[in-house]
């Protein structure tokens, strides 16, 4: 039996970063809001207090805060000629669940995409010719929104988080100490950059000697205490080294818990229901209007929650699956290239370089999720790609997020993975090594997409999502070029030796890479090429808004969170200022 609940003005599906932001914005506008979260409640003092937060086994390897895939996962394959099989264990990406979701166990790396990143097709076409965006069957698109339009909303997220950093471009003026390649910022970071440990400092010095432009990584691991615009208080980071993949016990990492929840949970017009999994968005008979959502809770009780506005703010993969299961928009067909839902799934192209010293104590256990010195000289279109055979790029970071010994012991080239030689190499190198991270873009490709699996089903009987993905030659060439640039900096640090960990072969689900899945519910300027408009509003069902990195038409060489947060604020403003007055399409098709 399905119980029909009292109608609300907005229902929010998934309560991580974008769900929390939308809840706060819509509640402040006076709407009656209900959020549905499939996982449990989580708060700092109960769930990851400092007395037990630094537990590598439990959080990283036993997935204590991550999505439990035992009753619902997705299927994966590299191309349409393979049979997709279930991702039976988390690896390549570590999906979130529960209140705060990935916002609890992210690094806190707060990046803005470059102005040219929003114009991937037109910008590259204009500079490098039409072929540059169609080679390798690329299907890159412009976003339908510009950096300038999003800038105030990027700023809003910085103010919320208290982001620590140094502006490199303030109102069009290049600033010493920051990233000279970034888009113009309207304000300095709310808090100064983190002081850097030894490894990142050595990296910055070597990079500068090579003529690169190093700067401190912008971070949501705060350099000093901060009170945000909602009255939430954050503490200064203590560099405990258990940040990404872990919850912060110290209220030092910006998360929904530390920035939004104390405020929004107290709003009288807000209700949160946990352990409540939305199965479907329900549509009117003409399928042009959503009437609400159906959900089932962990007690097995089924509900229909009527709502005037449906905000899909679950993770990329769940959002796309809900669109497909609900019949919102036309599914993408890789054979014809027609249809849009599931189109342009993309990822992040990662590689690294390990650096080994004899004479320098790096002390890698002094770390934080975004503790790094970075160069952005080879990201996006910050460099001339003529003759290189690829578009896109990466930032290169001399980064020390921690020295957690099960995950982060680096051994020199040729060291076996076990035995006496491995043990001796671990003992010798642990304190004297660290890693340069090459964080690369991933362009969209005709054969990379998301749809529903024909075989595997979840415990509710719904088809699992099927992911078809592999890196293309564009990504392999980009990654090789960038890994070589990182290698140059590594050598300039005068270590005993280095090890290049190139991105080779097909995408593999086993080794951890990043939880930066993008696309599938992409934004654009027309229903022919996108699922949502520039306000993340469904072209097909205009009272459905789809948040998150699913809107990215391809992925840039940066961490996605600030961009998806800016898009959420941009969407919220349009809902409040335009949609509520005149419900209907905000952009005419």
């Amino acid at each position: 039996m399905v119980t029909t609940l009292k109608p609300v003005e907005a229902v929010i599906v998934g309560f991580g970063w974008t769900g929390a932001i939308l809840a706060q914005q819509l509640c402040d506008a006076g709407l009656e809001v209900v959020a549905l979260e499939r996982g449990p409640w989580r708060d700092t003092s109960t769930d990851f207090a400092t007395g037990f937060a630094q537990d590598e086994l439990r959080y990283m390897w036993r997935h204590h805060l991550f999505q439990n895939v035992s009753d619902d996962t997705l299927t994966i394959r590299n191309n349409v000629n393979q049979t997709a099989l279930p991702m039976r264990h988390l690896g390549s990406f570590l999906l979130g669940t529960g209140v705060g979701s990935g916002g609890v166990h992210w690094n806190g790396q707060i990046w803005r995409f470059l102005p040219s990143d929003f114009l991937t097709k037109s910008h590259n076409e204009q500079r490098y010719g039409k072929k540059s965006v169609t080679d390798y069957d690329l299907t890159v698109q412009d976003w339908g929104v510009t950096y300038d339009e999003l800038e105030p909303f990027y700023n809003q997220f910085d103010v919320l988080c208290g982001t620590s950093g140094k502006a490199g471009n303030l109102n069009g003026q290049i600033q010493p100490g920051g990233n000279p390649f970034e888009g113009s910022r309207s304000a300095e970071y709310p808090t100064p950059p983190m002081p850097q440990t030894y490894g990142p400092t050595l990296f910055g010095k070597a990079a500068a000697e090579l003529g690169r432009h190093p700067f401190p990584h912008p971070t949501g691991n705060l350099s000093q205490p901060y009170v945000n615009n909602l009255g939430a208080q954050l503490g200064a980071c203590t560099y405990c080294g258990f940040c990404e993949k872990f919850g912060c016990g110290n209220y030092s990492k910006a998360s929904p818990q530390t920035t939004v929840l104390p405020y929004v949970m107290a709003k009288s017009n807000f209700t949160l229901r946990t352990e409540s999994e939305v199965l479907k968005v329900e549509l009117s008979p003409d399928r042009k209007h959503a009437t609400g959502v159906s959900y089932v809770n962990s007690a097995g009780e089924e509900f229909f929650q009527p709502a005037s506005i449906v905000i899909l703010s679950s993770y990329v993969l769940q959002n796309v699956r809900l669109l497909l299961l609900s019949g919102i928009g036309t599914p993408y067909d890789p054979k014809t290239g027609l249809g849009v839902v599931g189109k342009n799934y993309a990822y992040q192209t990662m590689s690294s370089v390990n650096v080994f010293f004899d004479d320098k104590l790096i002390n890698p256990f002094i770390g934080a999720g975004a503790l790094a010195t970075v160069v952005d000289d080879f990201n996006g279109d910050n460099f001339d790609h003529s003759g290189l055979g690829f578009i896109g790029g990466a930032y290169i970071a001399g980064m020390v997020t921690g020295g957690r010994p099960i995950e982060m012991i680096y051994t020199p080239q040729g060291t076996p993975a076990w035995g006496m030689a491995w043990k001796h190499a671990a003992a010798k190198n642990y304190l004297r090594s660290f890693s340069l991270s090459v964080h690369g873009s991933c362009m969209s490709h005709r054969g990379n997409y998301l749809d529903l699996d024909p075989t595997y089903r979840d415990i509710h009987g719904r088809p699992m999502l099927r992911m078809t993905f592999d890196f293309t030659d564009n990504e392999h060439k980009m990654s090789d070029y960038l890994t070589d640039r990182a290698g140059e900096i590594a050598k300039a640090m005068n270590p005993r030796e280095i090890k290049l960990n190139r991105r080779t072969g097909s995408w593999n689900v086993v080794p951890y890479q990043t939880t930066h899945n993008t696309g599938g519910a992409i934004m654009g300027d027309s229903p022919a090429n996108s699922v949502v408009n520039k306000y993340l509003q469904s072209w097909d069902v205009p009272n459905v808004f789809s948040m998150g990195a699913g809107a990215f038409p391809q992925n840039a060489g940066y961490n996605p969170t600030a961009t998806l947060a800016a898009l959420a604020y941009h969407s919220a403003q349009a809902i409040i200022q335009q949609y509520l007055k005149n419900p209907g399409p905000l952009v005419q098709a």
Partner: protein
Amino acid sequence: MDKPIPGRRRFLISTAVVAGTGLAGALGAKIHDGELGAPPRTYKGGVPWTEGQADAPPGVSGTDFKFFTPAERVFIEAAVSRLIPNDEVGPGALEANVPFFLDRQLAGPFGRGDHYYLGGPWPKGTPEQGYQSRFSPAQLYRAAIAAIDKYTRANFNGADFAKLSDDDRDKLLKSMESGSLQLEDGVDAKTFFTMLLQNTKEGYFSDPIYGGNKDMAAWKMIGFPGAHYDYREWVTRHGEPVPFPPVGFKGRPGWNGET
């Protein structure tokens, strides 16, 4: 617009409303531990917080073996002592109590595959598709140990794996690592080796509350200070040795008058 309220614990008002689900009695029982099945809740009016509740780590107790049979224990000791051998540089896996760690892991949620999707069908996948066995980790260990002993008895004059020389054990482990060793009874040697090596390193380097990393000797060997909380004064002291001995969740010898 409501007046913003300050965050943090001062405002952690316990106003959780338990939905009428028949599971309301679960309030106050063990809170969500990363597994499935926590009761549904409705929250309204503030950040919920319940006095006296913390999602503290489970830890282990006892010294007996709960999962491995005596014969399996002999196999595991013979295997992990080759994966991480003992010498003066640092402890071996045996000296770090890794077999006991493995036993407790396999007897618990990890062994049951609580975070694995094990539903069918189960065709053999590509290497890129990762773990595709129908076995939970505990089932895989049990089946693999039997299959490896079966193999060595057939190929080494009836000897179990544990009776082989160090060199022969290393050779067999290498052939499992490379995937060249073919085992019977549906066991993929490489899949088992990958899991055994990973779990061995987990037992060697995880907090001692889980039963391995005895005396934090593996942390001492590499110089990791453990669950240390605050390094602020060391951030800009570049290249200086950090003198803290390792600390675990239960402190360290010397605390509370212990030696």
